[in-house]
């Protein structure tokens, strides 16, 4: 029996090829994702381990998170006076004061930014290599004095920098010229950060704004002393104002921050891989159904010759398992390729990983085989059971068109019930006030509606195909009629084929609805809230030196410039409970550039020195009124009690103000010295031309390439561009599911052509030309694809609508249907059909007429 199975497997290898391709692609996606994210993880693990000092001392701060330079440009610091205190502790081999500041900018002499693009930071560090430094000076000399800099070798080679070249560094206190004196090389993979080394004094002055402070004090343990022992000796000496961590703890903390981010990426990628797997399942299920149907006679003969039901069942399952095994193995290899491709791709986005350090862990291999084999055997199970149930006699007689006329009534009832429930869930999601609950309803609704539509698909095939292919007979004559009827011949098969496409297209449609609604809502929000003519901002939202705001104010034509800052902090209630938040600072005139709805008081009063403007929700919750004292804990660790000067309406104030307190810049800087601007709103002077002022500002700010000047239109364009980028990324990830769906269409057509060989022979005999025959197959494919597109779009619009209503409370107030995307999907589906039909159509048209007529 096993021999017969193997023979049959080999005999059908052509027909199984596409199923295997589906397994292969799904497995490759899963394996590639795991290898890719594992590689990122292990690269950073190595980096963190090599860059962490044996023991490091940092300032303890509850409010500011680690790596929080993103807010306000200030970081908690450690005084240099701590160094002599710890230097003589037994077991300390070396002490190093470390300055490390992310978010700085490195430019060339033409003010072009050199730093890493996108996610990877540009980090300014003091040159003070400890005993196990992660970098070595590989050429030139160490920086000394105000005007010298050493840059990491990756950045140097990427931007073709040469020793002696003039560069410009922009730190917290502003820009200053430097000369490249040396090149430092990492002894582990640097995943893309640009490292700028300055001498210690310069780093303190220029990056931290003070001499005599460090961001951390790094200790090296003496031989024979473990990091833990050293930490335990140091901690009591420095006291509770400081955190003392071993290298392992530091690396773990860093890895945890990264890990959270990585697992988001991993989950998202695996989610898309899951969709691809789902589509693959439907393809394999369909293939095995068709194969079993075609082999009814063969299986019947086996039964007649004495094979038991289980043996027939097993032979189909073994065939599936073989398919899964081969598909998984090949998929694993393709996964390596995919991971390497992803590594190349993100290298262009600024994250550099080494392909030679690709992490292939055993769980990846297990997952790959599990996915491949389980998916194929599970999908082959139903057809196998059906095969084993065939009575030998019926099989030998062979029904002409299997599956036709089988009762669909149960299907209709079950499908309608499931659809009704899912519709209920979606409506519930759209109307529920509780966001978390609505999200669960939405998830359930999406899943159930998908299942319902797949169940009811065969019943929808006839009406929908009559609709989308109704004009075929008129335009294409009998070829059109034949193709449309062929598509309707086996509604189960047609709908199974189309539903694979439906899944991908439904996701495209729903996400495009959400995306365009997001863009539209944002547009509306900008129109409603932003009164400023121009906005100066860093594209990544990072703070910038105050010289930028000074330059803006000094530019002719600028009437009012309102400078904003943001720092981390907390609102402290009377009972001492803290509510973490962002504390916003502003120079006078905020109400002239941003429209804020006030409940009590005015913006001007709220942002007067010593006062604060708070949200109505917080005010109500804590019984605060105009004139009440409110305590704010700032990121520096200092708390201040201010007077409530204004209460804004929390719910209706968009722009993320929420319950964030707003204070005067001068007040903010009183508690957070050196807090940097992160936004400047500009109103042009009366009589000045907005465009002229904009170009004047752009010119004036040329030496600060990290900031851009935008009017409201630019702002909308920027947001739209970001949404489009995200959507395109998602479409790219969905492409694999769609490719597998296309394979499914190819598969169905190819097997249909084989099934209809005699019919094709007859058609050719009575005068159907080769070109006409090809067109017939192509049109059938187009009809199937359009059927999938119609279902997918319908489903996707439903999902999108529910999601938009759900998110309306979160600011997604405008609904926008992206008609251009929808039309593109329909046209794309037709093109997909044409492409899928290429092979099968050619094959059909090449059949020898006589052989075809005589075909059994």
């Amino acid at each position, binding site marked *: 029996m096993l021999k017969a199975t193997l023979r049959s497997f080999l005999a059908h290898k052509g027909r199984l090829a596409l199923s295997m391709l589906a397994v292969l692609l799904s497995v490759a996606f899963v394996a590639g994702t795991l290898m890719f994210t594992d590689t990122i993880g292990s690269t950073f693990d190595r980096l963190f381990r090599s860059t962490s000092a044996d023991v490091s001392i940092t300032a303890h701060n509850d409010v500011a998170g680690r790596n929080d330079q993103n807010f306000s440009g200030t970081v908690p610091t450690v005084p240099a006076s701590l160094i002599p205190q710890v230097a003589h502790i037994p077991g300390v081999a070396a002490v190093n004061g470390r300055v490390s500041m992310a978010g700085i900018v490195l430019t060339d002499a033409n003010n072009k930014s050199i730093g890493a693009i996108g996610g990877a930071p540009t980090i300014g560090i003091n040159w003070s290599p400890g005993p196990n430094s992660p970098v070595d000076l590989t050429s030139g000399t160490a920086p000394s004095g105000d005007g010298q800099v050493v840059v990491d070798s990756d950045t140097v080679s990427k931007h073709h920098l040469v020793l002696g070249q003039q560069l410009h560094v922009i730190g917290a206190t502003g820009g200053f010229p430097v000369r490249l004196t040396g090149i430092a090389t990492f002894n582990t993979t640097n995943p893309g950060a640009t490292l700028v080394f300055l001498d210690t004094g310069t780093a303190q002055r220029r990056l931290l704004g003070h001499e005599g402070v460090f961001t951390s004090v790094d200790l090296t343990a003496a031989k024979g002393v473990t990091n833990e022992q050293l930490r335990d000796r140091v901690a009591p000496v420095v006291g509770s104002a400081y955190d003392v961590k071993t290298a392992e703890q530091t690396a773990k903390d860093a890895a945890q921050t990264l890990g959270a981010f990585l697992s988001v990426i991993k989950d998202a990628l695996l989610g898309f891989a899951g969709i691809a797997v789902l589509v693959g399942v439907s393809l394999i299920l369909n293939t095995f159904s068709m194969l079993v149907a075609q082999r009814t006679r063969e299986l019947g003969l086996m039964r007649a010759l004495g094979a038991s039901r289980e043996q027939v069942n097993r032979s189909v399952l073994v065939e599936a398992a073989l398919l899964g095994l081969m598909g998984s193995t090949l998929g694993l290899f393709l996964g390596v390729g995919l991971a390497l491709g992803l590594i190349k791709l993100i290298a262009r986005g600024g994250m550099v990983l080494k392909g030679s350090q690709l992490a292939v862990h055993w769980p990846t291999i297990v997952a790959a085989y599990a996915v491949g084999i389980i998916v194929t055997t599970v999908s082959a199970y139903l057809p196998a059971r059906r095969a084993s149930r065939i009575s030998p006699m019926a099989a030998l007689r062979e029904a*002409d*068109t299997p599956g036709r006329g089988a009762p669909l009534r149960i299907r209709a009832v079950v499908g309608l019930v499931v659809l009704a429930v899912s519709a209920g869930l979606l409506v519930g999601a759209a109307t529920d006030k509780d966001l978390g609950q609505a999200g669960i309803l939405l998830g359930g609704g999406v899943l159930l509606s998908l299942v319902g539509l797949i169940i009811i698909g065969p019943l929808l095939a006839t009406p929908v195909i009559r609709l989308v292919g109704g004009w075929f007979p008129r335009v294409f*004559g*009998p*070829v059109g*009629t*034949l193709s449309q*009827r*062929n598509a*309707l*011949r086996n509604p189960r098969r047609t709908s199974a084929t189309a539903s694979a496409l439906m899944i991908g297209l439904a996701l495209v449609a729903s996400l495009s609805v959400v995306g365009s609604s997001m863009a539209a809502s944002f547009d509306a929000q900008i129109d409603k809230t932003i009164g400023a003519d121009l906005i100066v901002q860093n594209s990544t939202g990072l703070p910038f030196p105050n010289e930028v705001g000074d330059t803006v104010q000094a530019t002719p034509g600028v009437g009012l410039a309102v400078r904003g800052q943001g720092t981390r902090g907390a609102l402290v209630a009377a009972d001492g409970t803290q509510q973490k938040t962002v504390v916003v600072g502003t120079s006078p005139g905020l109400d002239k550039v941003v429209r804020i709805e006030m409940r009590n008081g005015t913006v001007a009063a709220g942002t007067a020195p010593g006062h604060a403007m708070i949200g109505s929700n917080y005010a109500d919750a804590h019984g605060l009124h105009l004139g009440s004292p409110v305590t704010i804990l700032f990121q520096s660790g200092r708390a201040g009690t201010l007077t409530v000067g204004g209460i804004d309406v929390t719910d209706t104030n968009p722009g993320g103000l929420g319950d964030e307190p707003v204070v005067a810049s001068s007040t903010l800087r009183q508690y957070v010295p050196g807090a940097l601007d992160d936004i400047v709103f500009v109103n042009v002077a009366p009589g000045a031309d907005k465009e002229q002022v904009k170009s004047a500002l752009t010119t004036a700010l040329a030496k600060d390439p990290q900031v851009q000047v935008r009017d409201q239109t630019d702002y909308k364009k920027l947001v739209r561009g970001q949404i489009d980028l995200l959507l395109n990324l998602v479409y790219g990830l969905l492409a694999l599911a769609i490719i597998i769906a296309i394979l499914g269409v190819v598969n169905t057509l190819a097997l249909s052509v084989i099934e209809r060989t*005699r*019919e094709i022979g*007859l*058609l*050719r*005999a*009575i*005068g*159907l*030309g*080769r070109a*006409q025959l090809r067109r017939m197959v192509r049109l059938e494919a187009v009809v199937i694809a359009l059927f999938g597109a119609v279902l997918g779009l319908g489903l996707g619009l439903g999902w999108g609508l529910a999601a938009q209503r759900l998110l309306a409370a979160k600011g997604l107030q405008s609904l926008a249907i992206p008609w251009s995307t929808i039309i593109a999907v329909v046209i794309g589906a037709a093109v997909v059909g044409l492409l899928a039909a290429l092979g099968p159509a050619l094959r059909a048209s090449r059949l020898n*007429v*006589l052989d075809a*007529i*005589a075909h059994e």
Partner: protein
Amino acid sequence: MAASGQPAARAVGLCKAYGSGETAVLALDRVDVEIDGGRFTAIMGPSGSGKSTLMHCLAGLDKPTGGEVYVGDTELSHLGDRALTRLRRDRIGFVFQAFNLLPTLTAEENITLPGDIAGRRTDAAWLRQVVETLNLGDRLRHRPHELSGGQQQRVAVARALAARPQLIFADEPTGNLDSRSGAEVLGFLRRSVDELGQTVVMVTHDPNAASFADLVLFLADGRIVDRLEGPTADAVLERMRRFDVRGGSQVTLPAPDAD
């Protein structure tokens, strides 16, 4: 339609070999034959005699390896696939032994299919006449699976007639039918010749079926070995028997034209 007495099709020195070199099998060996227009010709012969191959060559379904085939005045051996397809579509009708109809089309759609493919409107009056002659009036909206075997073959005959081809080729048209339905279909083919002036060529191994023809050509080992005008079933059977004995051992050659 070809005028009575003129050859509707003819073959001159027609050869058809399968395979090549040592293993070549000669299915047709220099066959000369004329098919008279407006008559009902039957081609008979035992399995492997080459009768189906002859029909396929005459109908432009198969390529001869030697000699010439004419349909009307058109010589077929130089025609490409496109021209042959058009020839079959416009000038020839087919009735096969089984699987004559497209399952997705109704009887009427099957009947008008060759004309529809050509983009021609089938003459309504003629269609009505054909349908009435074949007694299919109440079956036109049915799909093939709703029809009996005899009805299906009648629809196939109607399809062949509807386009008014120069020639109709019927390949064992009654092979899958019981004798009553078979006789009915043959009767219709006969009437199409007598009443509609059609030219029909039928391949069969059934002497009864052959007796409906005007002329029977006997084929053995790829040659025409005999002809019989105005056949009766008994006369045909008697001839067949004669040459089964004569042909003896050679009849058991491998059969390249699977019947």
